[in-house]
């Protein structure tokens, strides 16, 4: 239980972003900021949400920890276990399946030496399947961090994996541009 009470400190930058988001909702409705704050917290906490991180989010929004857990367990974008640096989320719903999503998933499994839901031992890659991402016309596709990678082929995947290993791939951030802050 010591672990569960561990103190979490988020960056100043994130705290400022949390204040901005809280300000978008009327007084007393700050819980509405929860989904977005969880995205930020997950990003700072290394890609997944553990109990101390969720407890800290609850404290910041003045709500009960259970209110955070029930949300974190409902939405698929929150990871409740540790994940790799690059999380490859491959869509396998109808339109992507027509265009060979299963082949792409098989190719990735073989290339990375892991199954769906697993992470490579070096902590670089995790492989997930996801449901429709709204890229049906550009199938097959996967999302890695902020960005979509569409019309996937084996060659594109090879190149992408190389680029990741060379540190050339950005996964983006939930923090907003300075110019977009109003």
């Amino acid at each position, binding site marked *: 239980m010591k672990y569960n009470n561990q103190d979490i400190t988020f960056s100043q930058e994130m705290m400022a972003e949390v204040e901005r988001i809280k300000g*978008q909702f*009327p007084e007393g*409705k700050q*819980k*509405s*900021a*929860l*989904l*977005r704050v*969880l*995205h930020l917290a997950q990003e700072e906490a290394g890609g997944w949400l553990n109990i101390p991180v969720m407890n800290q989010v609850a404290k910041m*929004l003045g*709500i009960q920890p259970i*209110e955070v857990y*029930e*949300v974190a367990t*409902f*939405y*698929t*974008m*929150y990871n409740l276990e540790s994940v790799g640096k690059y999380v490859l989320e491959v869509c*396998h*719903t*109808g*339109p992507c*399946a*027509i265009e060979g999503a299963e082949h792409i998933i098989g190719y990735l499994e073989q290339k990375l030496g892991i199954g769906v839901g697993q992470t490579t031992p070096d902590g670089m890659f995790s492989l997930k399947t*996801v*449901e*429709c*991402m*709204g*890229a*049906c*016309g*550009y*199938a097959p596709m996967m*999302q890695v961090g*902020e*960005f*979509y990678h569409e019309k996937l082929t084996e060659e594109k995947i090879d190149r992408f994996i190389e680029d990741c290993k060379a540190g050339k791939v950005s996964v*983006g951030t*939930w923090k*907003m*541009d300075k*110019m*977009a*802050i*109003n």
Partner: protein
Amino acid sequence: MATRKILLANDHTPGIQTYEVYRRQGGYRSVEKALKNMSPDDVVEEVKRSGLRGRGGAGFPTGMKWSFLAKPEGVPRYLLCNADESEPGTFKDRYLMERIPHLLVEGMICASYALGCRNSYIYIRGEYKWIVKILERAIAEAYANGWLGENILGSGFSLDLYLAPGAGAYICGEETALIESLEGKRGNPRIKPPFPALKGLWDCPTVVNNVESICAVVPVINDGAEAYAAVGVGKSTGTKLISACGNINRPGVYEIELGLPVEEFIYSDEYCGGIKNDKQLKAVVPGGSSVPILPAHLILKTASGEDRLLTYESLADGGFQSGSMLGSGGFIVYDEDQCIVRNTWNFSRFYHHESCGQCSPCREGTGWMEKVLHRLEHGHGRMQDVDLLVDIASKVEGNTICPLGDAAAWPVASAIRHFRDEFEWHVREPQLSQQRNYGLAGQTLAIA
């Protein structure tokens, strides 16, 4: 027939994402017109007379939805834009927001003015993270140029517009689940009534509109209701964005005038460009995965032999016996090689995954359908499974709080209605069905 472009008139103009170019192209004219020359009720009337119908899937008249909004004294009202686009086959809102973000901002200002909202929110699916940034940039530009904030254009109308990203849940596209999610909760749909128009976000009167519907308000105000209603056929006025995917030569987002024949849409080089690799058309899901699938002969012609048109009415002609729905405009095309059983199993897995679990018929039924379809597809089916699926689907449909139950039942029921032979073949030929697809009318085809 070359389509008149209304929403996508300048989507290819370089720099249209930026305020300067958008404004130079006539952007924000509708806000000037509405705030200076029209009362909020005038705007509602204009939208009513335009015949604009909800572009998210249900097709309910937008102006009428607006007129239901309760307006108790001293209680804030909210406009929420539904940008949770997650219906398989649908990727049109994404295109609008990525390409012309200011169009949505402009539409939100006009619609908020019409409804008397002081704060409005765009609820966008979390996966569209990069679009959150595009929109927040557009919103910041709108503030900087006086289109948002206090006393816009000196009219006394003030508006703050915010983005609220979701976190991965199809169900949040349902309006009451969206409201729950925006309140920072699980996306469990609410029992209606009370409808959001009476009790929505934080128990205040609320309108939820799809991205495309809100964007369409801009041309309705600019050109007038009559000009908008002059496009289209009958009660299907204006244009609709159709996102086309599957086995076609030119997948993508197309703006069509409502009334375009389906055949022209599929085969014209202006749109889908025909079936890929010169194959035959087998089936189409015309409005996102939830609507009934139709075999080639019923998507091109209605049961009574008329040309099937891309309108709300024509696609629904014949009811579910021989028709389907325009839905969200997610147009999925299947060629002769596609396995209907496999596709139906895939969709069932989707609905099982996305069921929020609140109502037993949906929570359990979607799982059962997935399981039975899985065994049919993998060579372990029994002949009675086909009727079992029809039975489960009929017991899920109409017995849930929200329409996800219907959405899960319709693809299964319609696939069996139109392709029963193919399901039975999977039972009769468990080995063969693992080696090849049934194809068109049982022809021998290799598994793709």
